[in-house]
């Protein structure tokens, strides 16, 4: 692929380091802020590969909306005291999971290395440039070929809003929840 190797290695190294920090840090707030860095590194890699619309969506939706939601929930629950649950696990279990996943990673990497990649589609970089750029071509595809899934997405979001309000609403008249609002 025609992308700059320096920036790819920089951002992929940053993403791998920060995602390890997400898994291995005690404090959920630290994990959340490392996750923001991972999202920005991913957005940079999308932009390097020419997927400008996806990069913008990544910053807006992931680094913007989803992370704000995470940080708000962490603050709401007062769950930010550092508890390192990783150490309480069985050491043998953790090591065996890590070794299995390393084996799977080796399998993936050899498979990807041996596969052959050929460019078959009509949307080469020059063709996209000629048709008005990544965002325009993507929008024309979205509103012609994928119009039905796009409309169904709105129903999904509406359902999610109703479900979240129904799940997270306080039920004050129920006896089991009389402690709501009291100190933990």
């Amino acid at each position, binding site marked *: *692929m025609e992308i*700059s*190797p320096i920036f790819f290695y920089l951002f*992929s190294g940053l*993403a*791998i380091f920060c*995602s390890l920090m*997400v*898994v291995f840090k005690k404090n*959920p707030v630290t*994990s959340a802020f490392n*996750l923001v860095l*991972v999202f920005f590194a*991913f957005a940079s890699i*999308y932009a390097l590969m*020419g*997927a400008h*619309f*996806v990069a913008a969506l990544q910053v807006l*939706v*992931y680094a913007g*909306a*989803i992370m704000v*939601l*995470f940080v708000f*929930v962490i603050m709401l*629950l007062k*769950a930010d005291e550092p508890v390192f*649950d990783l150490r309480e*696990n069985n050491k043998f*279990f*953790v090591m065996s*999971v*890590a070794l299995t996943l390393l084996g*799977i*990673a080796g399998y*993936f*990497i050899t498979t*990807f*290395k041996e596969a052959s*990649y050929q*460019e*078959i589609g*009509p*949307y080469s970089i020059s063709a996209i440039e000629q048709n008005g750029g*990544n965002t325009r*071509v*993507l929008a024309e*595809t*979205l509103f012609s070929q994928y119009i039905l899934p796009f409309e169904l*997405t709105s129903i*999904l*979001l509406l*359902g*999610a809003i109703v*479900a*979240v309000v129904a*799940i*997270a609403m306080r039920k004050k008249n129920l006896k089991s*929840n009389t402690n709501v609002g009291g100190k933990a």
Partner: protein
Amino acid sequence: MYVEPWLVLSFSAIIFLIGLFGLVVRRNILVILMCIELMLNAVNLTFVTYSTILQDLTGQMAVFFIITVAAAESAVGLGLVIALFRTLRSVDTKNISLLRE
């Protein structure tokens, strides 16, 4: 100025497996949700990479829909975390044993 496609695909596979490791090993439910987001991001990167390699925009359309579903998923998941915390006063998955005697 050329990066081999298998490097990018291996990078996203590594991020996916780091997320899977955290999902299996950690017990804080907020960190588990963050690991799910990591895995979804790795899948998105694989889609965009194949879309670039094969010069086909279908991969980027799939990423558009995955991001929408991920936003809905994390909203519902965090709502469930709030409901769970209200019942159990804890975010540790070890304490979810309501069906046990």
